[in-house]
């Protein structure tokens, strides 16, 4: 039942349709349907948002701690340092995403160049 468990050509597409398309558009359709009926500040929506945020943050954590491909050949300390300093610059620079992303990328590349 996993993505690569079935050799048929259509299986990955079905997987994406069910686990990707249906799983996201159900919320979009509900949003159109409910538009204006539910208050955005209701407690239920706060819980829903914190769960979704924690889940996506979990993905970010995994991408930094257990990366794949070429990033897996970099050291753990370098990745953490690049991400943490990039995030600090983002906060210090009035939440400018560009500043945070560029800082992290430059640090990572500098670290790789210096063989950290």
């Amino acid at each position: 039942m996993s993505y690569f468990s079935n050799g048929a050509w259509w299986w990955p597409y079905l997987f994406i349709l069910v686990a990707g398309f249906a799983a996201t558009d159900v919320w979009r359709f509900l949003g159109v349907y409910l538009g204006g009926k539910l208050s955005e500040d209701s407690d239920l929506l706060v819980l829903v948002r914190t769960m979704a945020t924690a889940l996506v943050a979990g993905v970010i954590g995994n991408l930094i701690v257990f990366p794949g491909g070429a990033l897996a050949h970099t050291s753990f300390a370098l990745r953490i340092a690049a991400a943490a300093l990039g995030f600090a610059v983002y906060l210090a620079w009035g939440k400018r995403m560009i500043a945070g992303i560029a800082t992290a990328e430059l640090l990572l590349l500098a670290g790789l160049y210096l063989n950290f």
Partner: protein
Amino acid sequence: MSTWTSDVTVPRSTWFLRGVRAAYSLPGLILISSFIGFAALAKDAGVTVTQAAFMVGAVWALPSMVVLVGAIVSGAALPAAMFAVTLSAIRLMPMVMALMPEMRAGKTRQWVLYVLAHFVAVTSWVLAMERLKRVPPDMRTTYYAGLGGTLVTTNMIVVTVVYAVADALPSAISAALLMLTPMYFLTSLWGSARERAGHMAMILGLVLGPVFHIVLPQIDLLVAGLIGGTAAYGWHLWRRKARVA
């Protein structure tokens, strides 16, 4: 008062093209860079280029796509993957709910809204909430179709191009591309949090994700989301009570 009254005579096609142009703004360009990162991620996971382009068009929400690829990598079964993506996509509902009153005009047909809702994701939403006010009400769906449609097709092309050139890139560049996605989300997620509980949920998730990746590899994201989200919500309630008392 209204800035668009002078534009009433502008034809519909012009509003569509103005929507297209809005896609090539700074948020749109940042989004492209994060799709470059996503393509590197998907390729690394063993997803083929057609599957990846299909994923961009069919899912069109980067956090959910990254969760989906994460589930694919960890070998999750279809129901577990679906559950994790469903949980990650809940945030789309309040976003769509907030956008609908902006977009609806007197005679807007309901099915048009359902179709356009598919384009809702962080970037197009931020751009639309900011710019729809300056579009005449009965041109708003047209404008948003131009904006959303352009963002989706552009990034499908971006993903295809990255797949084609990825193997030729030096490994330092590949590593830097793979770093784009976590950095994009680290900053955009923090910035888009509506309440302090969102920041708490984010910090908890950052730690719990890797912890459960070791303890419960196949359902790590789900557990991190449920536990981290509930704890952050509990903290939110506790703080509110403490403030009232």
